[in-house]
């Protein structure tokens, strides 16, 4: 006889073994994966989390009560897996491409990342799963109790508490160890695969014992079946189809199934094995269910709980080893379900409820990714604890009552409410968020009202019999007068019918948002992206590809250093580290520094092969590119500005250089000009000092000295005048004068003895307003220039005064040979005296002064090259000063 203590020890040993397996698998996966961790067989076995304690113990009980009906629970999933090419392949492809973390995430993601939908599906999942977890706790405690000899008392609640606490620790340890971006838990999956083997071996061993040990082989067994009460059962078409449908829906939509089927899938090709191997597993596990039930009914005293036949048959026949194995099988079924379900629920609760809440409470401060990561892990762990606590509480409240035994199918019916929205998500682009919300909510409510609440026993008998508020049409199990149906079928019918109708109707009537439409296209056309289903995504990033990309972005040396240091950290030689999530994340961060976070993410994921680029990725990339474009256009503008400044500086520098040269030339000119009269003054004054000369000579010398000093004075006056004009310090006095008169005075001052002057033009009588003294200075200068330089025999000067549209033009034309072409450009420069032929009294500053004066007056003076003789034109606006100022 197995003692209770031995049982507990074996169970503990088994759990320690599972810890070891999970630990080993986690470590192996981190190192790049062992053969087993990523094998399709592990994947297939992990799917057996579908078979919970409810199916392990309950299937036999179900068979004892209603014959072959238990088969539907396995036939539904079999059909789904046989048709993997149609549905599961698409689901897994999308799950990987969109980095889906849960069923709620899938639905929300397809319908425009709707938070509302995510929360609704999460609530649905929690509502449906919590009683189911309680059911597992109950089955474990009952199986413990089965080993307790009569008369001994064991605290079942304490057992349940210990089991729940142990499961919480295991799940937290291996379920939240790292926040892998793709939410895979290799340790957990490996442990569950081992448990799957234990379950199968236990049931097969018991079955073989029952058929060949208790009975005399297959033939005898069939005879026993025929004579057993189970043979009285007749199939009920409604229940048969309804339950097959529910189990088919459940194998996709149950949170734990979605977790192992889609989220934990590391290679799409694993489906090809699972497609036939998982139905095979289901077939084997259900193979001996009916024989066990038949033998149990015949062997055990009437009134024994058929749900525990799996344990009570070997115990009654004193097959201790078999009983222990059966116990471990049931224990495995219960624990694996609770572990995966709580991971899946915790992911949903923390991703869709806690984290959004926390982020909205934090406001914009929560941008540090490390911050969010810590909160995320914490909220995962808290969620796991809460889910198990909920399950335990539920067990304490309803434990031991019949309310739990039917909860398996009730739970299936609950999650099946997601089916219309899910199928719409995968195959119908016209499905909208509002349609999905309407459908799921309606289905959820009807399921609650017609099945869940009555099943858990909170619905009062008055409501059950007379309907809500006494309205007969609202009786939970005869809605709208549809009485006489099996309650389960009734609930499935109404909830699925109204769910689907509202989903389709609202979808047809509403218009999806852009994000919904993009996501819809991405989901429905999931296979068009690669075009070839051969292009199955690899599970692991190719380090060499990553290196090639990193070199391109970071520069060859930097990238190699980064890879080398990562390889050293991993304890490897060479420069190619294992592409662990940690390393990939680090690389992504490094790349983000150079190309922006979204782009880096998209690029790494592309090579990683785990996901294609989502719409949000693309939008983020577009944002980044826009920012970069803006930045680069700013840079461009700045560089243009700089270039312009540089050009201006260059011009200024050239001008300064020219000015400096000019200044040097000017200084040398000035000293030369000053030196000439000074030399003659000095020499003639020396002659005078020597004395002994005629008075005639003395007078001549004195006159020369006098003339030279006059010339010197004039030169200095001119220089002073020019410097005043050039520095802009000149004060201009505005006066009005008639042009002709002004010219007359200038001619009189200049003296025109040797010159024949003729005045022409229509502007002689016109008056102008300017600094007339300065203007006549220009005129005098020009007239005396003509007088000095005109080389004709009879010098003539024509002065033509005209007025054209408010502009005076006064031309001074002489009949000399004019200025040679080559020198026309420099005559207005200082000391630009062309020849020294009649240089007396001129320092070459006249025209420079004229130019300065004219520019101060707002006009100009130019040389007219087309005339035969010397020709100057003075232009001046009528009101010159106002314009010049």
């Amino acid at each position, binding site marked *: 006889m197995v003692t209770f203590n031995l049982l507990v020890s074996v169970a503990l040993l088994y759990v320690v073994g599972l810890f070891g397996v999970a630990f080993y698998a986690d470590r192996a996966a981190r190192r790049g994966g062992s053969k087993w961790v990523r094998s399709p067989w592990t994947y297939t076995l992990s799917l057996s989390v579908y078979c919970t304690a409810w199916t392990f113990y309950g299937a036999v009980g179900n068979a004892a009560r209603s014959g*072959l009906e238990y088969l539907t629970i396995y*036939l539904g999933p079999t059909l789904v897996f046989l*048709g993997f090419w149609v549905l599961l392949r698409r689901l897994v492809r999308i799950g990987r491409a969109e980095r889906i973390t849960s069923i709620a995430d899938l639905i929300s993601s397809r319908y425009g990342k709707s938070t509302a939908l995510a929360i609704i599906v999460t609530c649905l999942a929690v509502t449906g799963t919590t009683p189911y977890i309680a059911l597992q706790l109950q089955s474990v405690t009952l199986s413990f109790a089965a080993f307790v000899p009569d008369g001994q008392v064991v605290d079942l609640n304490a057992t349940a508490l210990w089991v729940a606490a142990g499961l919480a620790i295991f799940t937290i340890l291996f379920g939240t160890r790292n926040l892998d971006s793709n939410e895979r838990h290799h340790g957990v999956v490996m442990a569950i695969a081992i448990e799957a083997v234990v379950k199968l071996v236990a049931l097969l061993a018991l079955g073989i014992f029952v058929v060949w040990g208790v009975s005399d082989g297959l033939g005898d067994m069939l005879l026993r079946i025929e004579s057993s009460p*189970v043979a009285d059962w*007749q199939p009920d078409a409604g229940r048969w*189809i309804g339950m097959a449908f529910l189990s088919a829906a459940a194998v996709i939509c149950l949170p734990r199934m979605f977790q192992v089927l889609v989220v934990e899938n590391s290679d799409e090709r694993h489906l090809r094995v699972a497609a*036939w191997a998982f139905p095979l597993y289901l*077939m084997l596990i259900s193979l001996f269910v009916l024989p066990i039930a038949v033998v149990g009914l015949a062997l055990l005293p009437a009134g024994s709980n058929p749900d525990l036949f799996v344990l009570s048959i070997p115990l009654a026949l004193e097959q201790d080893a078999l009983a222990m194995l059966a116990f471990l099988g049931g224990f495995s079924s219960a624990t694996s379900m609770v572990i995966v379900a709580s991971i899946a629920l915790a992911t949903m609760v923390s991703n869709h409820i806690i984290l959004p809440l926390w982020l909205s409470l934090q406001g914009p401060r929560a941008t540090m990714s490390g911050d969010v990561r810590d909160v995320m892990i914490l909220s995962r762990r808290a969620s796991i604890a809460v889910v198990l606590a909920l399950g335990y509480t539920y067990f304490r409240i309803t434990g031991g009552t019949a309310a739990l035994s039917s909860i398996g199918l009730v739970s299936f019916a609950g999650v099946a409410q997601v089916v219309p929205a899910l199928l719409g998500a995968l195959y119908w682009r016209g499905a909208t968020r509002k349609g999905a919300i309407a459908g799921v909510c309606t289905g959820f409510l009807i399921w609650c009202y017609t099945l869940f609440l009555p099943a858990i026993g909170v619905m009062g008998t008055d409501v059950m019999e007379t309907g809500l508020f006494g309205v007969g049409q609202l009786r939970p199990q005869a809605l709208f007068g549809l009485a006489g149906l099996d309650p389960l079928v009734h609930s499935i019918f109404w909830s699925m019918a109204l769910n689907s109708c509202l989903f389709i109707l609202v979808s047809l009537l509403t218009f999806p948002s852009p994000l919904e439409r993009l996501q819809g296209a991405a989901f429905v056309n999931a296979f068009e992206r690669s075009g070839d289903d051969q292009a199955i995504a690899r599970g692991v990033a190719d380090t060499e590809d990553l290196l090639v990309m990193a070199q391109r972005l970071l520069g060859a040396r930097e990238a190699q250093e980064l890879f080398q240091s990562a390889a050293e950290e991993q304890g490897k030689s060479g420069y190619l580290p294992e592409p662990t999530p940690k390393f990939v994340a680090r690389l992504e961060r490094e790349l983000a520094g150079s190309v922006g976070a979204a782009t880096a993410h998209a690029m790494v994921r592309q090579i990683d092969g785990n996901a294609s680029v989502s719409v949000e990725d693309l939008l983020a990339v577009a944002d980044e590119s826009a920012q970069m474009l803006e930045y680069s256009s700013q840079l461009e503008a700045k560089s243009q500005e700089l270039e312009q400044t540089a050009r201006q500086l260059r011009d200024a520098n050239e001008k300064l250089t020219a000015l400096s040269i000019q200044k040097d030339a000017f200084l040398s000119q000035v000293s030369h000009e000053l030196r000439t009269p000074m030399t003659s003054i000095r020499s003639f004054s020396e002659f005078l000092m020597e004395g002994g000369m005629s008075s005639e000579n003395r007078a001549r010398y004195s006159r020369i000295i006098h003339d030279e000093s006059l010339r010197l004075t004039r030169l200095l006056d001119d220089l002073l005048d020019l410097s005043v004009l050039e520095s802009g310090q000149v004060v201009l006095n505005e006066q009005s004068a008639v042009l002709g008169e002004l010219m007359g005075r200038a001619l009189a001052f200049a003296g025109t003895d040797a010159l024949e002057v003729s005045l022409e033009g229509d502007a002689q009588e016109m008056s102008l307003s300017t600094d007339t003294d300065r203007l006549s200075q220009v005129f005098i200068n020009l007239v005396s220039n003509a007088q000095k330089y005109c080389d004709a025999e009879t010098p003539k000067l024509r002065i033509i005064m005209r007025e054209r549209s408010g502009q005076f033009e006064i031309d001074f034309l002489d009949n000399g040979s004019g200025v040679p072409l080559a020198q026309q450009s420099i005559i207005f420069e200082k000391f630009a005296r062309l020849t020294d032929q009649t240089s007396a009294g001129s320092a070459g500053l006249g025209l420079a002064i004229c130019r300065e004066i004219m520019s101060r007056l707002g006009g100009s003076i130019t040389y007219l090259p087309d005339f035969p003789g010397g020709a100057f034109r003075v232009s001046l606006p009528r009101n010159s000063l106002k314009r010049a100022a």
Partner: protein
Amino acid sequence: MSDGPDAPHRRTEFLQRSVYRRRRLLDGLRVLPLLGLMLFLLPAVLLAGGPGTTAIRLIYFFITWAGLILVCALLVRRLSDADEDR
């Protein structure tokens, strides 16, 4: 593989044939669940209360079940072979 002038033609023909075979395999995989649906559900609907005992039905279900699994495994095997050949 020959490099003769008609090699590309033969090659194309070969490829088309494999693609054709692959498509038919996929057709089979698509039809398989429908076949399973009929085999699993129709008897329950049609034969409720009709001929057959629980033992016979049990045998029927496990034989069809095993048959479907076998067909599926074969189809998948062929498909994987076809994929590798390409």
